[in-house]
């Protein structure tokens, strides 16, 4: 796992800094936001994590040299931030989430579209361990086994097993009786 730095103490900004990070932002934000949203499910938290990821990219750029594979770097750091945020928010977040959902009436249109398969997948994935979710979503975004291994800090061999287990578990959650044990 690459070391990431916080942006505290960075030198004053410049147009080159802004240009670099905003170019990267424009190129990768949609993919990265989708990845993080699917992992954390909460839009506000996803926004924070995406912003923090790009701020850290800025830190890397300023510290130099910038990452060679920017996309892979961004996903790796975002995945790490998701895990860290999940650790911090594990208990409070669980109950807060319930409160918010309980007190919020979902719009009719939202209910219609929730029937779409993507929501079903997000719901099903929520029950999987974090590393399973991360690996599945990284694979969905086109990352190789080696890149996934790097992102979740496992060996490539371990990732093969983990991915296989994750896909079977996801199927079990989507269709509980389909996969014979």
């Amino acid at each position, binding site marked *: 796992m690459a070391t990431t730095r*916080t*942006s*505290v103490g960075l*030198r*004053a*900004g410049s*147009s080159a*800094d*802004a240009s*670099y*990070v*905003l170019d990267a*932002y424009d190129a990768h*934000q*949609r993919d*990265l*936001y*989708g990845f993080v*949203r*699917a992992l954390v499910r909460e*839009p*506000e938290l*996803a*926004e*924070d994590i*995406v*912003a*923090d990821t*790009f*701020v850290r990219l*800025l830190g890397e750029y300023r510290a130099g040299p910038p990452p060679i594979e920017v996309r892979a770097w961004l996903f790796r750091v975002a995945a790490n931030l998701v895990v860290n945020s999940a650790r911090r928010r594990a208990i409070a977040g669980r109950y807060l989430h319930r409160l918010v959902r309980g007190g919020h009436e979902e719009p*009719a*249109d*939202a*209910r*219609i*579209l929730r*029937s*779409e*398969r*993507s929501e079903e*997948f*997000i719901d099903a994935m929520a029950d999987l361990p974090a590393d399973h979710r991360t690996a599945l979503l990284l*694979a*969905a975004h086109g990352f190789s*086994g080696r890149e996934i291994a790097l992102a979740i800090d496992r060996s490539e061999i371990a990732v*093969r*097993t983990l*991915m*296989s*287990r994750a*896909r*079977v578990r*996801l*199927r079990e959650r*989507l269709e509980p009786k*389909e*996969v*014979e*044990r």
Partner: protein
Amino acid sequence: MTEHRRYADLAAMAIDFTLDPIDAEDLRRHLETCTACRRVSDAMRADAAALRSIDFGPAPVIVRDHVAAVALKGGVTGSPRLLLLFATGLLLLLAIFAGSAAVGAFLSQQKSGPDLSEIPIHWQTEVVELAATDLWIEANGQRFSPVGLPVSVVSDPRTAESLTLAATWQQGGREMRLNLYFDADKSSWWVHAIEAYDGTVKPNWAATKGEYFKTPLNRPWAGNVNLPLDAGGQGVTLHVSNMQLIARPRANLARPDGGLQGGPVKPINPRNGNVFARGGELHCSGIFQMSPADAHQALLRLGYNVSWRWVKDGISNIQTTPPGGVIYDAAIGMSGELVVFAAPKDAIPPIPQSTSPTARPLRPPRNQPLSRWRPKPARSTEATLGLS
């Protein structure tokens, strides 16, 4: 672990990795003879495809603003929400470097307007954008201006046609606020009320109502503003120099994720939200009898934002162009777009049942059961909709 479970694991692994030749051959032979495992294998491959199609659209503008603010300022980190005040204060610098399409398009309409670096006020939300060379509120003999100060700018898109722009800043130990309330119809947007704090320690609202800045949709209002606000006899005036203001009613919200761009979303039948029901704008429009390509053109002409879904084997995928097959259902999306579902002609999936009348997917305007419904051959778009 049963034998079938082992093959499920192998089938799952085969999706992402190349199997050992012996395992691959073993799996192939098993899947040839075991229907259950073959179904699981196919389903897992479909799961992988569905995961690839998940798309939440772009990150909100606030995220980019935050990143840009940090890049330009340096030495700041934290949540975008916590730093909203800071980020909006730096939007001026953002305007210099960000070069976003929206800002560019907005400002490019000033043929001889001020240079970007000379614009001290640039407030941008998802639905409203205001740029000006100066802005101040004159109240009780004092001048309150947000220029150079951190400003919190938010919009509340209350309905498709009614939204707000609310700016808040601190000055001289006092909180100042400026609120604009917008309305829109099918052709124009305008401000129907303006209110501001009167600059006192315990502030009161100074306000005016009327029809201000009325402008055709998708075009900015430009000019100077010197507008007295009623503050119970106190003299409060809003001044804005070289203001360019635009409201985009549902423009942002109506952009379907991965879908297609159409015109502004028209108001949905307010009674039940169903444009295909009796009284709805598309009742008896013939949309469901058209091919997806013809329906797409017709809906764009009618001013809808259209987002297509291709439904096959129970999986709904967003399409960026009208798919083949036949239209079998439609719904209003969360962003106000018209979501149209198409499926292979011989595999129209069942319509999901809902528990609420308002949550019901929009069905073809016909009396026969949907299970028996098959589309008629496509007719001319113009003839069906009565378009010229």
